[in-house]
């Protein structure tokens, strides 16, 4: 089952199968011609914060939709909180909380009405509705605003309210699909604060997706997904260590000549990304002096950085996540992505 996981993270965790919070085997989903998810396997341990990282169109939302029983898998199986998503849909639903990528609030209602509606749908005991609502709304700092119509909320407030609502019925597994997409940096970081607090306060497993590299660092383990498959799965630190080299970024007068020269002198494949020449090399700071000595193309600027998850993504997929997004599809998809981001 580890054929999709060159990083080996899968194998290490396969032993936890019995107690796993989420366990996925050979899951696929096909929409007509499009194979959105192409056979993925992974396990998430109870209490873990597990992230799916990948560009738009990688199949992250489709995976969540299958795990929360909204979409039937084309093939493969999965259990969530110990229940089979194909055959025990109601049991799965009782035990999960969901925050979708696009908002699912009733904006005509107040925050409190949205919460109560959710509590009723999930059969939360009457006497617990009020205290639980207070607890989760206070956690996301919305208790004072509970009587305001959701239509008057900012994007960040709506997202916080959705997180609180997803927690209303004390789910064992919380799914967050791109919880921070389209939010300003400050709000993004506060959302992460809530997630950390939640993790400390409750016995809950968190499964989230993101296409922000920096956010994946908050996860205990991440699976990098691209074009429907998991390319690698491990802890962020292990992934970064596996890259094994630093990233050197150059600005030159003639990028094409520089790339050719680097290939010829050092047998290193460099490439152009966002107007800079980029390549990986072990011990970058010792390499830079040689670069100046041996490269005849004028260099305007140089920087060396420790591997980031961007480099991990690059080293496993051969492209940067931004380039993957840009080329991920036709203009329509690019347009929707931009639209999503702009909201």
């Amino acid at each position, binding site marked *: 089952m580890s054929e999709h996981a060159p990083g080996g993270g899968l194998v290490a965790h396969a032993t936890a199968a019995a107690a796993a919070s989420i366990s996925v085997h050979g899951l696929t989903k096909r929409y007509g011609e499009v194979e959105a998810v192409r056979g993925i396997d992974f396990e998430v341990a109870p209490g873990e914060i597990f992230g799916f990282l990948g560009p738009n169109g990688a199949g992250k939302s489709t995976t969540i939709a299958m795990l929360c029983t909204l979409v039937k898998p084309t093939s493969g199986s999965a259990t969530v909180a110990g229940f089979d998503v194909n055959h025990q849909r109601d049991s799965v639903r009782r035990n999960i909380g969901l925050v979708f990528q696009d908002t699912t609030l009733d904006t005509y209602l107040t925050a409190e009405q949205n919460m109560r509606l959710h509590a009723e749908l999930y059969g939360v005991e009457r006497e617990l509705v009020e205290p639980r609502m207070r607890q989760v709304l206070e956690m996301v700092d919305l208790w004072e605003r509970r009587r305001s119509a959701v239509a008057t909320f900012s994007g960040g407030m709506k997202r916080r309210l959705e997180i609180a609502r997803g927690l209303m019925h004390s789910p064992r597994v919380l799914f967050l699909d791109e919880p921070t997409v389209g939010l300003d940096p400050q709000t993004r970081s506060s959302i992460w604060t809530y997630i950390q607090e939640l993790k400390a306060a409750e016995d809950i497993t968190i499964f989230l997706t993101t296409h922000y590299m920096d956010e994946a660092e908050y996860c*205990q383990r991440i699976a990098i997904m691209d074009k429907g498959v998991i390319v690698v799965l491990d*802890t962020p630190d292990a992934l970064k260590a596996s890259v094994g080299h630093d990233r050197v970024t150059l600005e030159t007068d003639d990028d094409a000549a520089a790339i050719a020269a680097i290939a010829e002198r050092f047998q290193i494949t460099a490439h152009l990304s966002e107007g800079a020449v980029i390549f990986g090399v072990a011990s970058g700071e010792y390499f830079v002096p040689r670069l100046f000595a041996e490269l005849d193309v004028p260099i305007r600027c140089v920087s060396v950085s420790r591997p980031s998850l961007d480099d991990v993504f690059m080293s496993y997929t051969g492209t940067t996540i931004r380039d993957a997004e840009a080329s991920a599809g036709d203009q329509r998809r690019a347009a929707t992505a931009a639209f999503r981001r702009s909201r």
Partner: protein
Amino acid sequence: MVASTATSEPTRPAAGAPLPVPAVHVPASSLRGDLRAVKIVWERELIRFSKDKLRMITSLVQPFLFLFVLGTGLSRLASAGTHGVDLRTFVYPGVLCMAVLFTAMFSAASLVWDREFGFLREMMVAPVRRSSLVLGKCFGGATVACFQGILVLCLAGLVGVPYAPVLLLEIFVLQLVLAFTITAFGVMVAARIKQIQSFMAVTQMVMMPMYFLSGAIFPVSGLPQWLTILNRLDPMTYAVDPMRRLVFNHLNISAAARRALDPGVTWWGWHVPTLLEAGVVAAIGMICLAVAIVEFSGRE
């Protein structure tokens, strides 16, 4: 529980220690849970309607136009044929049905909006039967449409229909049945049609013929055969006809007027009784409801 995986997690001390809230436990599916779902979905429709004051007023415009503008304007033309009965009294039952028809259909359209704005997903992933969601939606739409019907019922006195308690009750029950059926029909359509523009186009295409063919603005006897057939196929016919009969039962008019204006619906010469007519409307509603439930339960 602390994660078993060995990773340094970004450190930030938990601000709030667990609050003293007993653990929430989501119970297994039960009739009680489903009833709670029906009730909350129904309540939501009412809350939304109560916040939409503009809609209450605008949906009264059309009945007003038909009753007072068309009714008054045409009354001189029609006076020869109405045997002394005010044309507005004659069209009143039809106008009442129209108010219910349009409001109910509009309520069903909210399901399409729910899909568009994502809220439908919140309901679809809940651990309750889809049938309770559909039922709640239909009851909600029916209640809202009935409320609109009551507003039109208040106008009865202005067009010579007496405020007799029995009559009001009978009309109320009948319009409740109609409201439920139309909402169920709209919900059934909304299960299939996902775009609001298409939904509006389809319902316009269905509602107008339904209204005009139903006998809301003409007596249903002595029509050309093609119109008779279409009229008998129109579900609205079976709501307008008994409603008119109920109204005319409480009027003091000549037998000739009664025969001309309220001939009653016939099937191959047989007079369809009032209760059966109401039964036809209810049965159509149940069929639409069943189809809607199947549609929503089957979806992913």
